[in-house]
């Protein structure tokens, strides 16, 4: 994070969840549009050093999206998912999968909140699902009091770094 733009906060509130919050100095209709308009996506989505192309973007429940990022060396990194819930201009739920790591499917829930001063608070909760859930199901009945949190895991991560 640069000092200029330390406006995004990231927290690990529970097992399998990452929450990012950011205040945008714009009305929420505009922020929601930026999220759901294929013409706008390439202007902000992804790393600055790469170019984003919208391959598919069918913004309706069950609709598929696929964005491709191409870096300066020509390497392509593709991401895809499915839209699950669309409530303009408040809420957007979609899945997210990096094709380089198939099977690790994340469910993203974006909440757009209008602030009294005309700004918008965006809260994106990324919930890790799929293989984890599948394993969780296989292990259910044995799980009992499993209550480790990502915060605890983050401590290991820090040790391992």
């Amino acid at each position: 994070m640069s000092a200029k733009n330390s406006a995004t906060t990231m927290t690990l509130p529970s097992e399998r969840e990452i929450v990012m919050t950011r205040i945008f100095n714009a009305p929420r209709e505009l922020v929601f549009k930026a999220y759901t308009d294929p013409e706008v996506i390439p202007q902000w989505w992804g790393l600055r050093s790469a170019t984003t192309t919208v391959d598919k973007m069918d913004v309706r429940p069950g609709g598929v999206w696929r964005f491709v990022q191409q870096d300066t060396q020509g390497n392509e990194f593709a991401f895809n998912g499915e839209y699950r819930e669309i409530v303009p201009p408040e809420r957007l739920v979609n899945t997210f999968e990096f094709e380089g790591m198939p099977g690790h499917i994340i469910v993203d829930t974006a909440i757009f909140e209008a602030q009294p001063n005309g700004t918008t608070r965006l809260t994106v909760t990324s919930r890790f699902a799929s293989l984890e859930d599948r394993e969780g199901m296989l292990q259910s009945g044995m799980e009992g009091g499993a209550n480790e949190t990502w915060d605890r895991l983050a401590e290991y991560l820090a040790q391992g770094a």
Partner: protein
Amino acid sequence: MARLATTADVFNAVAEPQRRQILTLLAGGERSVNEIVEALVLKQPQVSKHLRVLKQVGLVRVRGAGQQRLYQLNGAGLKPMHDWVGTFEHFWHESFDRLDEYLQEVQKKEKHDVGKE
């Protein structure tokens, strides 16, 4: 973000709650299988199975001490996960910075266009 084997990677290894319990316990120091069984009130074959998975992905190391085998946490084994979380964070920080810039730009343009009418 390199492609990882989906059957035996660090992500799957730590996705299982009992394996996280074992990692938490080992964070406090090395333990034998029996000590893990007792501390976590799990069955011995289960613990052995989990330790095998954790060892396979490099999250724990084992050493022999007399008759015993002692397991210890290998923090470095979590690096792929740490890297991934770091990449994830970086990706969204940068995207949101860009979104912020776009929103400022488009609002400036709107104001300008309204002014022209």
